[in-house]
């Protein structure tokens, strides 16, 4: 072939992966290669092992061996270890807030619905997937509000004053993430738009909600948002928080998408144009899926950040999980310093959720990866 083929783009051809060479396998070899590869490496290993030997037994002792698990009151915590009775006694508060006992099934129902909606790509029949997924996601927050509030559905009315606990963190975070993602996409599109108006509005929104600390946003939300509502309407505090979190999420997501957009080669737009696809068809059918795919790690990081930021709500007096824990700590029946238990518990629950989120995201990433043989 003539050398006029100046552009030599080589196409990546995957080959089947091969098993590791035999010499490098086996536990002994692994130990030698990874833990005792040299003098410095061996010393480091020994120091770390010594530290674990010194730290772990007392820790386990406090956490488990000498801890109190059974009982209902402070008087049942007699040993030197952790007082898990405290967590047990407050578990309903920590998870469901002050929601009436008889209505707690409504929170559970909402959480089950959330799980169903999030997992819909896995169980929806293939031909419905692309059409229903997004719709299910976007209506979820409103269905959740209807169920929890109850009035529309003819259930007992539960004012948002009684909503709280970890379930509130979960639901607020999901509702904000779910609406913030598409909103952020619109802002990111606006920023790329040729229309000066759309561009400047988007830039202002994005930079504002990314630049101002979330706490300041919460305070502004309580003071400023009511100005946008008709005079005299009393806007629910949680609703305001939800709006603020959604806008905050949208600002961050817009920036995440911006990076994603930059990764899409121009050829994708050209091929779409040549096929006759319109701007919106190109954006939604060709560009969006690829932007989401390349942005997946950042989308996850931003979602986790938002989820963790919901604990800031304790400062503006919303009974999310951390402020519930603080209430429990100052309860006159439980004075005596169970702060370690309380914060450890909240920390672990948070960690489990975030870890779960990153596992799910890794799974989605794998599912979206179409670049090689699967």
């Amino acid at each position, binding site marked *: 072939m003539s050398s006029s083929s100046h552009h030599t783009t080589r196409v990546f051809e995957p080959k089947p992966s091969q098993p590791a060479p035999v010499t490098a396998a086996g536990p002994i070899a692994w130990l030698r290669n990874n833990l005792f590869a040299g003098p410095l490496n061996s010393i480091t290993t020994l120091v770390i092992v010594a530290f674990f030997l010194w730290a772990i037994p007392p820790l386990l002792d406090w956490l488990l061996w000498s801890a109190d698990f059974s009982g209902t009151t402070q008087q049942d915590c007699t040993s030197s270890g952790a007082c898990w009775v405290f967590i047990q006694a407050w578990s309903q508060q920590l998870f469901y807030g002050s929601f009436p006992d008889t209505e707690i099934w409504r929170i559970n129902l909402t959480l089950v619905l959330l799980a169903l909606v999030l997992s819909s790509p896995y169980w929806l029949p293939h031909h419905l997937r692309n059409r229903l997924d997004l719709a299910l996601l976007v209506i979820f927050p409103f269905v959740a509000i209807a169920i929890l509030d109850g009035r529309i559905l003819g259930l007992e009315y539960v004012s948002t004053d009684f909503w709280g606990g970890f379930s509130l963190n979960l639901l607020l975070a999901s509702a904000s993430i779910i609406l913030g993602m598409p909103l952020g996409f619109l802002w990111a599109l606006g920023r790329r738009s040729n229309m000066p108006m759309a561009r400047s509005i988007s830039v202002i929104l994005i930079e504002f909600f990314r630049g101002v600390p979330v706490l300041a946003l919460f305070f502004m939300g309580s003071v400023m948002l009511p100005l946008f509502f008709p005079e005299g309407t009393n806007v629910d505090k949680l609703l305001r928080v939800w709006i603020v979190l959604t806008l905050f999420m949208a600002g961050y997501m817009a920036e995440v998408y911006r990076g994603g957009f930059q990764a899409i080669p121009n050829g994708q737009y050209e091929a779409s144009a040549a*096929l006759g696809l319109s701007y919106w068809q190109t954006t939604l059918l060709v560009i969006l899926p690829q932007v989401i795919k390349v942005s997946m790690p950042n989308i996850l990081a931003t979602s986790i950040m938002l989820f963790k930021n919901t604990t800031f709500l304790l400062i503006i007096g919303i009974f999310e999980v951390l402020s519930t824990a603080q209430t429990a700590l100052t309860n006159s029946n439980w004075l005596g310093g169970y702060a370690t238990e309380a914060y450890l518990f909240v920390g672990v629950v948070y960690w489990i959720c975030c870890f779960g989120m990153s596992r799910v995201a890794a799974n989605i990433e794998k599912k979206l990866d179409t670049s090689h043989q699967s």
Partner: protein
Amino acid sequence: MTEVNNRPEQEAQDDVIVISDLNKWYGDFHVLKDINLTVKKGERIVICGPSGSGKSTMIRCINRLEEFQRGSLVVDGIEMIDDVKNIEAIRRDVGMVFQHFNLFPHLTILENLTLGPIWVQKKPKDEAEAIAMKYLERVKIANQASKYPGQLSGGQQQRVAIARSLCMSPQIMLFDEPTSALDPEMVKEVLDVMIELAEEGMTMLCVTHEMGFAKKVADRVIFMDGGEIVEQNTPDTFFANPETDRLQLFLSQILEH
């Protein structure tokens, strides 16, 4: 040579592309200078010329991937003006194959082919899939329909890209160096598909340096240099008796390899 030439009274109607005095600038840089080109229905045209001579820019004007500043362009009787309706109508008639394939990596081969028919032509999914399978058979790749582009070789991807364009039943096909990103052993499989297409009477404009292909299928070969059409002729005359020095130089450069 073509059927068209036997009926001269219909010639004007059979001009599917009429480019007159087309000029384009990138800032101060004059990329296309007074381009005049008329293409008849069923005509196969090969365009060659040195790098940067404006070949891509010219054929990309035909489906409005590039705008131009002066002159006129009529495709299949539709004047290219700054109007979405006209642009859409022209793009419906014109298919394009790119150097780097530009398949949609997140869609399967079949979905790549049905995207246009379903969303642009509003065809029902079954019908779109039937058409897609027909063209995949033609480019001999039907057994890969459910794979993703990343799992195919370059030659296979380019054949899919051709099939994707054909699914929109275009009147005109544009090719911009369709084989120059391919490994040598894959060039032939793509050229074979293009030759077959030419033999079926598709109107084709093809930027390529595959001179064998030009000799075999072209009705006319066009030489561009510095943003101008310097010379055009039937392949026989074009290669045997180049009129200008610039073409002689160009041919000697590409043929000596």
